[in-house]
């Protein structure tokens, strides 16, 4: 009767495989250690903001300065700077309206995409296009020419903390230097509404 030899090598290999499998299992499974009993309740609050703006129709149609026949021209008026009849005569009809369907006061940011450019690529520098704004009402005086600021290619806050249901009125002016080549010059001015004290963004 032959004595059966034990295959120790195979047994060790099997033990190694089992150990590696166990370690692999615990490496990839989050082990639960111990028991704990607890009760919890959820505390929850949701803060919601909503805001809406609209440009008055004369502003959404664009800011136009008409034909200019003699140069230099200084503080050329936008075509609707003084054509409002309500609330008072000679107010501006360039305005941004903050909807009553909102729950936050709004800051209105303004920028232009570029200098005023002609199809021939002649340029009226953006520092020549200026604006002034006044919240809630407009008349002969407001928005004030003396408070004009140049429009830039980055958003800048124009009106701040305009309450829901209110208007912010604007006037626009353009200076044209004496040696400006003739042509039609255009760009795009953007208005952005953000919640008060938020940054204008890019």
């Amino acid at each position, binding site marked *: 009767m032959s004595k059966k030899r034990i*295959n120790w090598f*195979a047994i060790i*290999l*099997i033990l*190694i*495989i089992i150990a*590696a*499998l166990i*370690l*692999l299992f615990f*490496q*990839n499974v989050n082990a639960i250690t111990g028991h704990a009993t607890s009760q919890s309740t959820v505390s929850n609050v*949701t803060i*919601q*903001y*909503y*805001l*809406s*703006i*609209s*440009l*008055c*129709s004369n502003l*959404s*149609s*664009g*800011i*136009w*300065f*008409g*034909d200019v026949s003699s140069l230099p021209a200084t503080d050329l008026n*936008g*075509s609707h700077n003084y054509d409002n*009849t*309500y609330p008072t005569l000679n107010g501006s*009809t360039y305005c*941004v*309206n903050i*909807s*009553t*369907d*909102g729950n936050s006061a709004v800051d209105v940011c303004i920028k*232009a995409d570029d200098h005023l450019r002609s199809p021939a690529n002649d340029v009226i520098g953006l520092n020549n*296009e200026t604006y002034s704004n006044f919240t809630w009402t407009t008349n002969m005086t407001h928005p004030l020419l003396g408070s004009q600021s140049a429009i830039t290619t980055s958003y800048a806050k124009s009106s701040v903390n305009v309450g829901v249901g209110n208007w912010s009125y604007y006037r*626009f002016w353009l200076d044209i230097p004496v040696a400006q080549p003739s*042509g039609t*010059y*255009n*760009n*795009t*001015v*953007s208005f*952005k*509404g*953000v*919640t008060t004290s*938020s*940054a204008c*963004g*890019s």
Partner: protein
Amino acid sequence: MKNKEVKNWNFLLLFVLLIAILLPLCSAGVGISWNKESSLVPENTKTCLTYKVYNPWPDDSYAQVKLSEELMQIISYQESETEFIPHDTSSANAIPVEFCFKTPKIYKENCWLFNELVCKKECKEEMKIYEGEVEIIEADAPEVVEGSGGSATKMSVSAPLRVKVQCVPHARDYSVIYIAVILIAGILLTINLIRRKNKKK
């Protein structure tokens, strides 16, 4: 009696005049509603956020949804770029717009093999934050040329958004080594068993 009638007519005329003056002041507009300004997302994870657009104004409008450049780096899905918003859509009936972000794998791992395997993560770096805005731009701005030169106008509303990428620390992952050990031991075991079988024959 006649005086009263005239008074009524005057009042009506004044009312009509007031409406006529105010009406041209209104046009289409855009609105945005949101309830989340920041989101904490583990790295290499997809997450979706919903904003709502509305138009409480008397004219229909089309709105283009735009994410700022910082957020465009990580966007993986945007439901729609242009939304039609019917007039008189109040904030209560705002139209949802969904965005999904896939946060990148940005935090360094300490790895033993090939910069990829047997790694641990300690999260000692500062949290990476993608800060930008969700902007709703009126897409159908009329192109009316009144004069010979000037500026066309556009309008938009925006909401701030911060996507904070969370680093999830983990201990060194030896899985690859365990798998290699299992494979090698398995091969050796197979060879050993085959040899013994052949010897018996």
